């Protein structure tokens, strides 16, 4: 019979593996999006090819340009 702490460690490792796999899939599958939140908790997504979405992505691109690369990043 396994010691109790071994069982606990295995359980924690399993959860960590699950989380890592989820994050890996998210990185691969996630697409650009523009999400707006309004008073009362309502939110709306705007596709990149819609008029509003295109304007939002252009404005966001400018801000990303102003911010520049992260400090310490190469290239």
């Amino acid at each position: 019979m396994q010691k109790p702490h071994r069982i606990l460690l295995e359980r924690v490792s399993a959860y960590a593996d699950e989380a890592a796999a989820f994050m890996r899939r998210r990185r691969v599958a996630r697409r650009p999006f523009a999400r707006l939140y309004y008073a009362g908790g309502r939110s709306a997504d705007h596709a990149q090819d819609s008029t509003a979405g295109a304007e939002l992505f252009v404005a966001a691109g400018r801000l990303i340009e102003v911010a520049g690369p992260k400090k310490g990043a190469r290239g």
Partner: protein
Amino acid sequence: MTTVMIQEARGRVTVGSFSQMPDAAAAAAPSSESAEAALAFLTEMSPDLRGAAVLGPEGEVLAATGEEPERWGEDAAALLAAADAAEEAPVEQVHIATEQGEVFAIRHEGLAAVAVTERFALASLLLFDMRSMLRQLGKGQH
């Protein structure tokens, strides 16, 4: 007799306290120094942050990272204008994720903050920090 006096005094103090309490909308914009301190704290708290700016009630830049505060003001105004125009209603928060990075904007108590992060930053945590920053700036706690 004593009770009556205490009640009268309490009434005077209460009225005085409320008359001195500034209305959130009428409060003056925080100073640049306090906004810079708040932004420095946010930068320290958020490892994924690339840059950010705090805007005053009129859209003026109170503090910004980097060397182009004017551009932060112009581009943040453009983003908020585009967001407001999307559904003809004022937005409270904006989150745009692109291949190059993520952009967040939030309005709170007449102030606004804009931030650019690496991809896959923790959105809820960053927005919480930004809102806390604006709330404290609004209260003059920085």
